[in-house]
């Protein structure tokens, strides 16, 4: 086996041009879409401020939100399941933080940690029910969607007689853990950029002289960290291989010794984790938790993931692709505002992009995997 002539391998590899090989990858659809979307808006809205510092921060923040939940949804979808309760989980998590931190007055870091624990437990419950009963995750998580949303409205209603609980920012003042989810970083650098004239400064109002962008929001940092984590987990670790295997063919994976049930449950937990990160950043930034937060976010996450090239039935996809899908989603959504397009048409655009993306991705996937 050691005397295998390396030449033979090289000879075969030449069959496919390196160019084509580099091109044909799961993220290709996402990359093409991203380029198309940016070109489109560069032409349509180049003079609208969409591509100055403030504009970039604008669509980056929206995209980062989508990315955070898309990473969880992506890994879960690759593991062969999906989760419709993400949106309700976001509302629920925010409300729990508000109730623990404001209504009950616990230190914010305890409130956040306990909320993470509760939400991840719900995620695990989703997973355990799906794995144990063999029911489709669509149904199980649809039930969770309703149950969590019900609690999100019922609990504050009963405890506080309101469905928006504010004062979270004040309660989180100076908390070490809360600081990880709210605020911005890199302020001095942006101040310097502003002074140097690279980015604009406010020329009126009470912040005149400050740069228009005064730092990178923690939300974007979280999105970045989760994408890197998800990408490395998926492509560079043993567990990542198990995720692919569990979604590709659970039975075959089980035979090969992959602990499929554990993988799926953990992915449900991770999805819940991402939803809770989203919720925590949101309540820290906006200072209040509302019972209607996160509506329809589950669909937005799934759409971003599917635009990014993942297969709805599992076993195939890429975190980078999902992130690009989220970027496309965010840029299109905000770009239409910059381009001054009637905003209710956004949904029509979204539907059309989804269809086109999924057809393109199917084509690319068939080339890669030799599906019939």
């Amino acid at each position, binding site marked *: 086996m050691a005397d295998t002539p390396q030449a033979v391998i090289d000879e075969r590899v030449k069959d496919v041009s390196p160019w084509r090989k580099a091109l044909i990858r799961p993220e290709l659809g996402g990359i093409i879409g991203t380029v198309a979307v940016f070109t489109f808006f560069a032409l349509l809205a180049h003079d609208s401020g*969409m591509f100055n510092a403030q504009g970039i921060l604008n669509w980056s923040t*929206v995209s980062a939100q989508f990315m955070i939940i898309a990473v969880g949804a992506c890994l879960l979808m690759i593991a062969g399941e999906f989760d419709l309760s993400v949106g309700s989980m976001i509302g629920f998590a925010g409300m729990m933080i508000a109730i623990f931190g404001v209504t009950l007055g616990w230190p914010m870091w305890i409130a956040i940690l306990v909320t993470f624990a509760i939400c991840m437990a719900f995620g695990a419950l989703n997973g355990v029910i799906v794995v144990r009963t063999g029911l489709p995750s669509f149904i199980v998580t649809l039930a969770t969607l309703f149950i969590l949303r019900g609690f999100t409205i019922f609990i504050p209603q009963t405890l506080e007689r309101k469905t928006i609980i504010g004062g979270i920012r004040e309660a989180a003042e100076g908390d070490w853990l809360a600081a990880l989810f709210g605020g911005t970083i890199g302020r001095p650098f942006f101040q310097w950029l502003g002074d140097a004239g690279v980015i604009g400064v*406010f020329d009126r109002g009470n912040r005149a002289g400050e740069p228009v962008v005064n730092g990178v929001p923690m939300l974007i940092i979280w999105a970045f960290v989760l994408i890197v984590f998800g990408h490395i987990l998926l492509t560079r670790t043993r567990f990542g291989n198990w995720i692919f295997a569990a979604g590709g063919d659970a039975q075959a994976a089980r035979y090969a010794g992959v602990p499929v049930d554990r993988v799926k449950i953990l992915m449900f937990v991770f999805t819940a984790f991402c939803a809770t990160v989203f919720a925590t950043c949101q309540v820290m930034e906006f200072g209040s938790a509302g019972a209607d937060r996160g509506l329809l976010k589950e669909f937005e996450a799934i759409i971003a993931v599917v635009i990014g090239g993942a297969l709805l039935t599992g076993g195939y996809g890429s975190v980078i692709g999902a992130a690009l899908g989220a970027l496309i989603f965010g840029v299109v959504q905000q770009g239409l505002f910059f381009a001054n397009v009637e905003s*209710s048409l956004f949904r029509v655009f979204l539907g059309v992009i989804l269809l086109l993306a999924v057809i393109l991705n199917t084509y690319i996937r068939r080339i890669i995997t030799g599906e019939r």
Partner: protein
Amino acid sequence: QAIDDDLSYIMVSHAPDSDAWWNTIKNALNLAGEQMGVNVEYRNPPTGDLADMARIIEQAAASGPDGIITTVADYDVLAGPIRSAVDQGIDVIIMNSGTPEQVRELGALMFVGQPEYDAGLAAGQRAKGDGVESFVCVNHKISNPVIADRCRGFADGLGIELGSSMIDSGEDPAEIKNRVMAYLNTNPDTDAILTLGPTSANPTIQAVEEMGLAGDIYFGTFDLGAEIVQAIKDGTIQWGIDQQPFLQAYLPVVVLANYDRYGVLPGNNVNSGPGFVTADNIDKVEELAGEFR
């Protein structure tokens, strides 16, 4: 509270479960129920679908209460069920939205509230007086026809076309914030911002703060909440239109209970709003914002 006559009233709103503003209504309703010694119930269509609301009014009528308190969010949809209830012998009071003519036509006892369009109109006139010539209306529930009336009224009060001034902001705070920022960036000559409730107001406050426009841009909002009150104090928001939801829920219960017990009835509709809450009169509001104010 020895009166033991077991009166029961049902309030049917048009708000989805999660609409925060209606909490004040619920709280005031319960308070009035306690104070008057009557049973009160609050019902609403979970998704805010007005057709579902019509069913709930029918259902409320079927359960035979002594009175129903409801809104006329859409006269076409709700007229039938409300009229049936009235004809069935149930006393009905219209609150929040509707017009005096509609109330009369439906045979309801009275109206307590603030017609959405009129409130918008009044706000628009006030803004016009303050020199506003263009505005953006942040609509967080584009598909709900009721609150869009506020934008239309505002535009008419200013005497300008609504045009593309109403933006579909979605309900996610970050999206609202960033869409407002995007709009203001592309339309830098916008004079005023109108938000339609705490859902859109809170992120918008942050948007103008972040853009350094706080206090600089004319900013008015409907309905109050803790953040809005704070922003009024800070000078970020010029005024909040307070339709005093407390009264909209509290008064009908009191009126109905007294009507049923003693046959007394005020002779007129009550306009609970629009009251403009500004930095000058904010203090009392502050304490109870979101709960009773």
